[in-house]
């Protein structure tokens, strides 16, 4: 069975410090990978998605970046955190699209609560 891991679970960082959140998926190959953020009082905002190693698409301009150094590893980074980067960060995966497939459900990790002070 497939599992998705995220760490750390919680993180408190000062403004201006760097960030690295890691997500790994087990039990599947070549998944689509996603980073979402849930800010206080807001829905799930898609930040980045990746359809393969080294392939990153950014959905919104921001202070964050993403990388996919390995097939099942997705990293969210920042060189200098802002107060507005606080939120609940979620990693998700889905199977790649194949011909004839109707949909691909996304499976979410447990999330990382980031507080920037």
């Amino acid at each position, binding site marked *: 069975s497939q599992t998705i891991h995220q760490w750390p679970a919680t993180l408190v960082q000062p403004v201006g410090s760097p960030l690295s959140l890691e997500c790994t998926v087990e039990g599947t190959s070549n998944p689509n990978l996603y980073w979402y953020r849930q800010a206080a009082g807001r829905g799930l905002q*898609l930040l980045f998605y990746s359809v393969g190693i080294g392939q990153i698409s950014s959905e919104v301009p921001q202070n964050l970046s993403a990388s996919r150094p390995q097939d099942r590893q997705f990293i969210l980074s920042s060189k200098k955190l802002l107060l507005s980067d606080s939120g609940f960060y979620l990693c998700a995966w889905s199977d790649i699209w194949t011909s004839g497939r109707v949909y691909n459900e996304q499976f979410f990790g447990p999330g990382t609560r980031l507080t920037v002070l």
Partner: protein
Amino acid sequence: DQQVKQNSPSLSVQEGRISILNCDYTNSMFDYFLWYKKYPAEGPTFLISISSIKDKNEDGRFTVFLNKSAKHLSLHIVPSQPGDSAVYFCAASNPSGTYKYIFGTGTRLKVLA
């Protein structure tokens, strides 16, 4: 521009009664819709989905209805249970082939015992 909207941020329902959560969308090209349930400090979990070729899908206590002409979908929970208390997100499939989903802002459901 919010393409998927959940206009009710919260809903309270008595245990045993029906919960109805609503979702509206603006893009007529969306072809697949999902509902996710989220508990605090956890990732969302998939609940139920519906293709645009259908108008109803049922799974136990959960039923999703789709009205394409109105660009509206709803989730019915009958009977509601205290364990259903959570935030519910609707999501729509962006028909780009990459399976990006556009999520709504969520509705917090509280089922009162």
